[in-house]
């Protein structure tokens, strides 16, 4: 040890010994142009000489310069480099450079300057996240980073969000990225009721605390997170204060009003009655023509069916109102939405620092009403980020946030009690019973407005994220950092179903779920940055990390209540289910990384990580994940150095391997579970063993180009990548006759290949500024080999992983139209000819749920104090399946549900050429799952438009405030799509195969926000 220290000391001395020449002393002070706060650590160099110094904590510097006129170069990470002639007592003001190549970006276990980075990393700054009216910060990333696809499941609040970075790279394991907040990997999987939609633990984080989000896309950037990085890594950095910064207090407040972005078009009462009459006619005619009941003539057949429909449906559900005159015309769809659902957020933060201590403190309160009734989300919390330098060498700090959220939930999409299914009710059904005046309890499906009135489902989450660090600078070149952190999530969900409701089963029910997740994480690493002179730069990191997560889950269900007054288990008298369980997983990792650059021209980086996890058996517990990358800054070469056009040009290439272990616990073991039979407790087998189970591996190659041209007015990045995932962790079906259904096996491969283009341009500069950002990511996924396994998912229409096809293709019967003679739906038969026999239709690939490309297009205009931001997102090439189509377009065969206006085109009789098959409860056609309900899901959406006004300086001074911005913004104001509902829906948000299925799913919100931001 001693020897190493002395060696390192020697190296440090050798490399720093160079400065000792005679000349004159120049002194000065460097400040931030924004607020005139002193900047410490700014490198001051005499141009062309090897004379270097740094500013002290007051921003002051003193440098010896050779005789004669000299130029001083001021460089500081995150600020524009400045060259000034050396004068006495220089007052230098540096301005920060957001969105330029000098930008500092956060990488795994460290930071780097964008222009030195050889990996593919997308950064989204606080500006894009702040005050965006979204249920969770990830929503704000949509369309902001090329190749990052964000799919919000629905317009319900607090729900899971599916994020895929450069495509889906797993079939059975998770394909969600790893999220790391200030160095601490956090829990992102749903911890709530497994019988309802998954919720999103990231929704607890205050978006306004976020300074930046870095998305590590390629293997060289992500491989330092090894076994958990195959799906990319999202690094979230929260805000910090700065040394010697005057304390600033910032207040943000906004209100917003939301409505559904898109609604379905359903039949009104008259149209519904007409369609019922058509069903009677079609059924009667079909019966007579096929001699089913033996009617003497077609008219008597129709009359009989007409009588059935009118007495059983129209008379029965109109409750004595005159359906013939459409006396009642209830728009049930309207009843499931709140009108102008209100969101309110206030947050206050204070930040600043003195010589030794920096701080950021914030508190926030947010209350959102969803567009759907009974769905509400409250959250509040606080954050403290504190950094203190105890001495020149020792510093420590903590990032701590404490949040509480409350989510009032509605049932999942596939429950009669969910408000989303109100659309199935009949327009002839009155909302209130005309005889009693009470809410109508005699509706087609049980009226979920009762559930809305008498049920509740409240999930309260407490989340604490804390990460403390200690940094010890052995020498200027060698630092050791130790972090220890915890992510503690406590969730309690209390649900109650009143006696009056369908979920209450006439007896009333209640249940409680308690879920706890505690992660302990420690990172310990050395960073070595020797001073190797002007041309050689080296940065090496070596360390280890250990992660341990313990989860507990307990739930109890009871029923039989005396009345609705008590809404928890104490009101129930019969416990029907109670259970508690727990699980643990651990990851032990070692990592090593080196970045080397020569002359700012040639950049090389290599890393390796070794991971071991409890999720794998002793046979294959360790995995090794290497990566290497290189960059060549062509613009530093002589032939481009003086180019007037090209200001920066860097070619980079990387290769690396990352892993995926998101398969749950104990997957390599043969297991028995407990079975429950009265008085006979038993065991039943639940899983087969696979002692050889190992990591799923993704190898990724990336070639990229970063450039800046025309005086840096246009900057951009181009990337090509190819990801190859092998040893896929697949749930392989085995014959049921073995007593098992499937087991997890490493088998097969899949690839993702794509291009990404990011362009930023300053179109107009000066008083009137106009910036354009455009990004687009193309991804092509292909399942290469799954050795004939049948792997299915999806909701209504089956989705599959099929070799040679993209993952999750829709697989089923192809609808070819309607036979004009019979009204029968026609499907592609196994013989390639149309058939009206659904059972004889061929099963085939019908389309895919993953898009060909996605992207965003932003234009920002500013003139004096006014700024306007117009942001579009677009998605193309994906299909959406309306799984509710079998009901809302089932032509009454699957129930008398109200139908969409598409059924107005239903086949009316022999010779009618249409695409909507024959309707009828008895002899309807085309009511089964098929491509009939599969739609093009491409869309372009005006995701956000905001107009801001910065109050003039004169007013600010009078009010003693630094700045104030007033803004109005709109979300999802305009959409163009061929899908008849909202294209941003997915009833099963998680899962790699299922996707793009709509089942009475709540659409996204269309929101108007008015807000104010004030800094004191």
């Amino acid at each position, binding site marked *: 040890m001693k020897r190493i220290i002395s060696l390192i000391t020697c190296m440090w001395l050798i490399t720093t010994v160079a400065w000792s020449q005679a000349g004159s002393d120049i002194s000065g002070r460097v400040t931030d142009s924004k607020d005139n706060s002193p900047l410490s650590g700014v490198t001051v160099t005499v141009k062309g000489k090897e004379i270097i110094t740094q500013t002290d904590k007051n921003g002051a510097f003193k440098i010896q310069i050779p005789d004669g006129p000299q130029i001083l170069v001021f460089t500081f990470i995150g600020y524009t480099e400045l060259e000034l002639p050396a004068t006495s007592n220089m007052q230098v003001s540096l301005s920060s450079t957001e969105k330029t190549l000098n930008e500092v970006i956060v990488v795994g276990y460290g930071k780097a300057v964008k222009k030195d980075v050889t990996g593919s990393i997308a950064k989204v700054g606080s500006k894009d996240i702040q005050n965006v009216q979204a249920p969770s910060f990830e929503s704000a990333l949509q369309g902001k980073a090329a190749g990052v696809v964000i799919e919000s499941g629905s317009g319900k609040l607090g729900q899971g969000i599916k994020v895929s970075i450069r495509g889906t790279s797993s079939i059975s394991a998770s394909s969600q990225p790893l999220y790391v907040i200030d160095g601490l990997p956090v829990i992102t999987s749903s911890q709530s009721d497994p019988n309802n939609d998954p919720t999103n633990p990231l929704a607890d984080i205050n978006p306004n605390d976020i300074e930046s989000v870095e998305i590590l896309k390629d293997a060289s950037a992500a491989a330092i997170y090894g076994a958990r990085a195959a799906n990319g890594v999202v690094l979230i950095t929260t805000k910090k204060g700065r040394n010697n910064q005057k304390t600033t207090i910032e207040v943000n407040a906004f209100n917003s009003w939301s409505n559904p972005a898109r609604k379905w078009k359903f039949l009104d009462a008259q149209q519904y009655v007409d369609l019922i009459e058509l069903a009677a006619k079609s059924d009667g005619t079909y019966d007579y023509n096929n001699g089913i009941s033996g009617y003497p003539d077609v008219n008597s057949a129709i009359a009989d069916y007409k009588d059935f429909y009118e007495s059983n449906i129209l008379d029965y559900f109109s409750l004595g109102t005159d359906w013939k005159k459409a006396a009642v015309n209830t728009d049930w769809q309207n009843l499931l939405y709140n009108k102008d659902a209100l969101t309110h957020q206030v947050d206050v933060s204070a930040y600043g620092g003195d010589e030794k201590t920096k701080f950021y403190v914030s508190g926030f309160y947010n209350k959102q009403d969803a567009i759907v009734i009974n769905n509400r989300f409250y959250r509040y919390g606080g954050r403290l980020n504190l950094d203190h330098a105890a001495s020149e060498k020792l510093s420590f700090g903590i990032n701590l946030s404490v949040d509480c959220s409350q989510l009032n939930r509605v049932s999942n999409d596939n429950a009669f009690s969910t408000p989303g299914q109100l659309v199935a009710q009949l327009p002839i059904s009155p909302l209130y019973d005309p005889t009693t005046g009470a809410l109508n309890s005699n509706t087609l499906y049980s009226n979920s407005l009762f559930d809305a009135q008498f049920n509740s489902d409240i999930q309260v989450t407490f989340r604490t994220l804390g990460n403390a660090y200690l940094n010890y600078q052995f020498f200027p070149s060698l630092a050791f950092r130790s972090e220890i952190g915890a992510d503690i999530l406590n969730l309690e969900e209390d649900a109650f179903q009143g006696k009056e409701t369908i979920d209450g089963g006439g007896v009333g029910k209640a249940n409680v779920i308690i879920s706890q997740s505690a992660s302990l994480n420690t990172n310990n690493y050395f960073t070595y940055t020797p001073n190797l002179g002007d041309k050689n730069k080296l940065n090496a990191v070596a360390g280890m990390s250990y992660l341990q997560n313990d989860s507990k889950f307990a739930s109890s269900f009871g029923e039989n209540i005396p009345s609705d007054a008590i809404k928890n288990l104490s009101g129930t008298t019969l416990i029907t289910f109670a259970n508690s369980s727990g*699980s643990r997983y651990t990851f*032990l990792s070692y990592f090593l990384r080196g970045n080397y650059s020569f002359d700012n021209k040639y950049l090389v980086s290599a890393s390796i990580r070794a991971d071991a996890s409890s999720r794998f058996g002793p046979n294959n517990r360790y995995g090794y994940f290497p990566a290497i990358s290189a960059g060549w800054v062509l613009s530093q070469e002589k032939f481009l150095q003086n180019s007037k056009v090209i200001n920066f040009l860097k070619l980079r290439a990387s290769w690396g391997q990352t892993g995926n272990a998101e398969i749950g616990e104990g997957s390599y073991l043969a297991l028995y*579970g407990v079975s*429950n039979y009265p008085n006979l407790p038993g065991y039943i*087998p639940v899983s087969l063993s696979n002692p050889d189970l190992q990591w799923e591996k993704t190898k990724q190659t990336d070639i990229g180009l970063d450039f800046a041209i025309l005086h840096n007015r246009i900057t951009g990045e181009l990337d090509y990548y190819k990801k190859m995932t092998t040893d896929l962790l697949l749930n392989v079906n085995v014959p049921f006759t073995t*007593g098992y259904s499937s087991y997890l096996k490493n088998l097969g491969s899949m690839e993702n290949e794509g291009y990404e283009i990011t362009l930023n341009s300053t179109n107009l500069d000066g008083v009137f500024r106009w910036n354009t950002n455009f990004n687009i990511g193309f991804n092509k996924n292909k399942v290469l080999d799954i050795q004939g396994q049948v792997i299915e998912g999806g909701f209504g229409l089956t989705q599959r992983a099929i070799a040679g096809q993209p993952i999750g293709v829709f697989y089923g019967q192809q609808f070819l139209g309607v036979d004009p003679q019979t009204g029968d739906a026609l499907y592609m038969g196994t013989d390639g000819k149309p058939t009206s026999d659904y059972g004889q239709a061929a099963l085939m690939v019908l389309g895919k749920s993953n898009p060909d490309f996605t992207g965003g297009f932003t234009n920002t205009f500013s003139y004096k104090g006014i700024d306007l931001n117009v942001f579009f997102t677009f998605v193309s090439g994906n299909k959406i399946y309306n799984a509710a189509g079998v009901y809302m377009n089932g032509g009454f065969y*699957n129930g008398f549900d109200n139908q969409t206006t598409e059924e107005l085109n239903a086949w009316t009789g022999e010779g009618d050429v249409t695409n909507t098959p024959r309707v009828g409860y008895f002899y309807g056609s085309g009511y089964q799952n098929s491509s009939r309900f599969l739609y093009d899901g491409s869309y372009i959406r005006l995701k956000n438009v905001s107009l801001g006004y910065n109050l003039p300086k004169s007013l600010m001074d009078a009010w003693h405030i630094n700045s104030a911005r007033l803004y109005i913004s709109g979300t999802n104001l305009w959409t163009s799509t061929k899908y008849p509902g909202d294209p941003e829906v997915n009833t099963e948000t998680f899962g790699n195969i299922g996707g793009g299925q709509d089942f009475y799913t709540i659409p996204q919100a269309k929101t108007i926000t008015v807000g104010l931001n004030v800094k004191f």
Partner: protein
Amino acid sequence: MKKIKYTAILFITLFSLSNCNKKLDVVPQQNITPDQITTADDVKALLFGEYSLMQNANGFGERLIFIPDLLADEKQVDFVGTFTNYKDFFTKTQDKQNSIPAGIWSNMYLVLNLSNTVLSKISLIDPSEQDEITGEAEFMRGVALFELVKLFGLPYSAGNISTNPGVPIILDPPKYVYDPANALVSRASVGDVYVQVLKDLQDAANKLPTSQDDNRADQYAAKAFLSQVYMQMGDYVNAATMANDVISSGKYNLVSTFNQAFNNVSNSQEDVFAIQQSAQSNAGTSDNGLTTFYSPAPQGRGDAQVDAGYKTFFENGDFRKTYTQSGSSIGGFSGKYTLKWADFYKAVPVIRLAEMYLTRGEANLRKGGAPIGGIAPLDDINKVRQRSGATPLLGVTGNDFVEERMRELGFEGDRLWTLKRLQMDVSGLLYTDNKLVLPIPQREIEVNSNLVQNPGY
């Protein structure tokens, strides 16, 4: 001072590293591994696991009873619900992708495999108990195979029993690591499956005690099932013998009124074999379970109504005719509902003594000659009729028994098997119609190329 600091940091780092390796061994907290099955109680727990599979919705908790009734004569059940996988059985348009055959198939093969595991670990059981446990495991395996071959193969009555495909017979204990070499089984013939069913149930009848705690299967449960098997085979001598053994045991009595036979907390006096349910252990309360389908909303879904034609089987005054309630389905259809499955958490009678009377009577009648048990068929049928206030018959034919079974055993999953064994049409379809046989689950065929699909799928 500095040195101490460095050493401390280094020490802490190294300490934390060395400690971590042990932390990679994590033991499951709610499961056991096969090496933890070491005692007699563990083996019995595997056997008890089979009871919960029998109670499962894919067992007698719902589908083994409900699906045959949906397929059977339409004068019994009307399906008015929205679940297309059930509705397709009612309309006899089910396809090979339907999830229900896969559910039944997987559940019943799990029973088979658990039985095989129990039998392979019988040495862990105390020798004095080994016979009983063996018999009970064989009972489960025999019943599972019997239910499978009835659903997935042509009926025994269709003949060609040595060539008509039945279902695979699995007798070896399962492996814990998948091995395709012995997993790709083929369908045995209908005849071979019946041979195995008889073997298991006969051995069970020999080894099981006459009575067991907790309503577990005993000797008479095995004999009652044997009577069903022999009826399917048209072996009336053995059918009558087995039914007579159950009746003459004296262990069971017809409950005094028909309604007392149903919705009981545990076995009634007339239950020879019944599935137990409780608030904490049942076949389902929202999407599955007999009560879910047969009880009107809001308690159940009310998807299965009594067909108007059902009452035409009865004379007025027959209690069984009015053993219904009015209500409405979750999908808004009003109608009549049988009361047999009215309440949640109640025992599900699988074989009642009343059936044994009807079986003994019918088998005696069909075989002719001196009645086994010494009771005339007419007395057996009237014994059942009188309990419900139906007028006693003066003479009896085979068809009287068919109709009486519909009256007595309606909604209990009997009708389809009665019609099939007698080669009678089922709702206008020939008893061997393709749609009256369930498809081998498509996914099963895809993972096991040795399986042959049934015709029509």
